[in-house]
């Protein structure tokens, strides 16, 4: 056979480049995963409430489930490389009204969880930071301050400042945001590496000694007392069992959900297949490995029984627990045994906690912007600042909503017990079903997309990935539905989700009618021009 050079001829013309690369996407996603929040929540709730569960095994299960969900979203991001996340997917791939309603409920749910993240600034970040500095420098004032700032009013004030600062950052532009994310990532990375190093080099005996010293002003012989007190109150360490381990998997999987958030900025990513692949799948795998590793090491150093007991006591008998909630960075800081080590760890976890806030605002803001460009919201929502070239109104709207949710969460009991994660599961379930059907329902669109290049023997792997994703989402939904601690299915939560979803639908049709009167057919934004 002839050997011919295979190349193409290019002429010099003006070019097109999209802004975010693989590293940006990876950092963005791992920021929303927030390894720090994931570790903190899993270690606080896991051993206390699922005594037979194994954090490393549960983390591995969570990573596997989330991997399949992520794979489905990766296919979507390649098939429809647009900003706006599942709004772009479902409106283009299935049905515009359904797409809007799902996007509405999805953005609502994540903004609500962003309010929760704003409280972590104090409970996972500043609280342990001040407490550990106070303990190791014998400054009782700092310890008292640590206890005070985790109260609702300071949490609201600090959380509001954090959200407003995130909004200001986003207004100044995506480049500054990505730069900020990278700096935060560095600080967060130092924090988690420092934690892992201390977990590696320190023994259980050293932790017990450090803990007893730190807690001496509050509980004599604290380590053993904490365990005994928990047992007295009915908590039991029952040894490993699979049922508790599977149940526990919802806790590491909740932060892993953040690994798919780059679907919100899909239109701003270059080399989508590669960048989203590394960003989505890579961030989930890396975070999963860290969860497994930290889980394994912390059992060895803190002690499985102690972790469960100290967390259990924090609600059942607070006088027999740490003065502030015993989140992982507090225990890791005590393990470090010195100011420098505990500050590095706490700053790292503060960075992890803050990571979530601007990134989730971006997720919601991009959805609002996409609605506006399709004329589903007032034109002002799509207003872009001439100075910064950013959608200022969309950002301000999401910031205000976030602060409102923070207030409701902290001060109104109805909202503090609300769990909206099932709303996201509903949105994902429908997106996965749409993903299975997409190569068959939107044949032309699919054929022209990068996703069709991944077909196996002519069969669309996008459908296979979405099927696997659907199974994973259904398993996760089952676990969440039956776990009152992680989600449950309280009437007020289901009613809120249904109301928001219904409002989304109603809003779509109201706007459609309104635009029709103005001479705009919203449906045109989603229709392909037939050429044959």
């Amino acid at each position, binding site marked *: 056979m002839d050997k011919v050079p295979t190349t193409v001829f290019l002429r010099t013309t*003006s070019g097109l480049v999209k802004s975010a690369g693989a590293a940006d996407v990876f950092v963005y996603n791992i920021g929303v995963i927030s390894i720090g929040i994931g570790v903190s929540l899993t270690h606080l709730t896991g051993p206390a409430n699922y005594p037979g569960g194994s954090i490393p095994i549960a983390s591995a299960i969570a990573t596997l489930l989330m991997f399949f969900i992520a794979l489905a979203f990766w296919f979507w991001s390649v098939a429809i490389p647009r900003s706006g996340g599942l709004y772009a997917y479902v409106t283009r791939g299935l049905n515009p009204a359904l797409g809007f309603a799902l996007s509405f409920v999805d953005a609502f749910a994540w903004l609500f969880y962003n309010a929760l993240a704003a409280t972590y600034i104090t409970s996972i970040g500043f609280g342990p930071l001040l407490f550990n500095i106070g303990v190791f420098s014998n400054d009782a004032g700092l310890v008292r301050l640590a206890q005070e700032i985790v109260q609702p009013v300071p949490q609201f004030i600090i959380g509001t400042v954090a959200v407003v600062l995130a909004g200001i950052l986003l207004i100044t532009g995506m480049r500054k945001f990505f730069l900020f994310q990278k700096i935060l990532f560095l600080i967060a990375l130092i924090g988690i590496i420092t934690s892992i190093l201390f977990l590696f080099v320190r023994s259980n005996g050293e932790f017990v000694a450090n803990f007893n010293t730190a807690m001496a002003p509050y509980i004599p012989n604290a380590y053993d007392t904490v365990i005994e007190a928990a047992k007295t109150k009915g908590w039991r360490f029952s040894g490993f069992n699979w049922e508790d381990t599977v149940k526990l998997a919802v806790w590491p999987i909740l932060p892993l959900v953040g690994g798919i958030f780059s679907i919100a900025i899909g239109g701003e990513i270059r080399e989508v297949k590669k960048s989203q692949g590394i960003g989505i799948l890579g961030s989930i795998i890396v975070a999963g490995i860290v969860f497994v590793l930290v889980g394994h090491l912390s059992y060895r150093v803190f002690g499985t029984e102690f972790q469960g007991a100290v967390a259990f006591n924090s609600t059942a008998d607070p006088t027999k627990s740490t003065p502030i909630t015993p989140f992982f960075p507090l225990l890791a800081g005590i393990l470090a045994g010195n100011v420098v080590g505990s500050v590095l760890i706490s700053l790292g976890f503060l960075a992890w906690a803050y990571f979530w806030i601007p990134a989730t605002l971006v997720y919601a803001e991009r959805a609002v912007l996409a609605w506006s460009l399709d004329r589903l919201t007032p034109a002002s929502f799509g207003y872009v600042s*001439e100075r910064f070239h950013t959608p200022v109104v969309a950002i301000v709207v999401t910031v205000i909503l976030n602060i409102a949710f923070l207030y409701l969460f902290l001060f109104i009991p109805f909202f503090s017990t609300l769990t909206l994660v099932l709303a996201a599961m509903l949105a994902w379930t429908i997106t996965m079903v749409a993903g299975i059907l997409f190569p068959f329902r939107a044949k032309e669109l699919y054929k022209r997309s990068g996703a069709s290049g991944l077909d196996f023997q002519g069969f669309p792997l996008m459908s296979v990935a979405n099927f696997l994703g659907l199974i994973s989402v259904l398993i996760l939904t089952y676990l969440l539905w039956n776990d009152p601690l992680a989600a449950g299915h309280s009437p007020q939560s289901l009613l809120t989700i249904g109301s928001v979803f219904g409002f989304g639908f109603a809003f779509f049709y109201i706007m459609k009618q309104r635009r029709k009167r103005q001479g705009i057919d919203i449906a045109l934004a989603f229709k*392909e021009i037939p050429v044959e």
Partner: protein
Amino acid sequence: MILAKTGLTKIFFATDIHGSEVCFRKVVKAASFYGVDVVVLGGDLTGKMIIPITRLREGGYQFYFRGKDITLRTEEEVNKYQDEMKRLGFYIHIFSPEEGAALRKGEEQIANLFRKLMIERLEEWLLYAERETKQVACEFYFMPGNDDGYFIDDVIANSKSFLNVDRSVRTIHGGYEMLSIGYSNSTPWHTPREKSEAEIGKDLNFLISQVSMMDRCVFNIHVPPFNSGLDEAPALDEELRVIYGPGGVSTRPVGSTAVRGAIESYQPLLGLFGHIHESRGCRKINRTFCINPGSVYFEGKLRGCIIALKDGKVANWQLVEG
């Protein structure tokens, strides 16, 4: 002149289709699909890449496409790929290994081949447009952009359906006026149609002097106004490599200061722009509503916008992707 004072004038505007056959067809079909009175296709009609397909001596064909070397046995199989390539805006040329070797030796031969293929495709498009627009009550306008060689002017001058409006002021449906300029300011690529800001300013002043009612005038200018947010492009170094900062790709406004100055001074009703594919959006500069629908021609999707003008005002607008 009769002004449609109470009627609605609907304009569909798309731009930067860069040789994509399916996008051109969509532009033609947009008139009836969107029910508009005027279709305007902004600049950059011609494509950027030729895919050479080598006809092998022992039979079969070989070419490079989407990052892969592809070998096919029959012409039928090749045709399937050709449709996809045309859709994406690529030109195709089939030749023997000897012809290929000769062609690769000189830039001039490649330039001539580009010229030949561009002309052929434009001619095909115009025939298609003529056939498809006969029964359509709509005005069709187009113009070349900075990436289009001047040689295409002769080809598009023969169009019976689309009117080349480059460097002119025309009265369009509804009694509105449309001022059009297809070239751009200087680019790092030194593309065929570029002018200095001073020259653009001079041409603009000349054309503006022909506009009778600026408050009913549409500026159809390929290059967007400077620092309008419709002109954000990646910053490049001296070797035309994208500059990456710690926050990702560095971008900068690359629009025309002369165009911005003209808009600020004269405040026309509407500004239709293109050139910067990734700067899709709309802005207001004083009273002028400015829009750049962007372009994703390489996906075979046509990005455009529908603008409804009523009583000398922008009554409504909608970005579409069809």
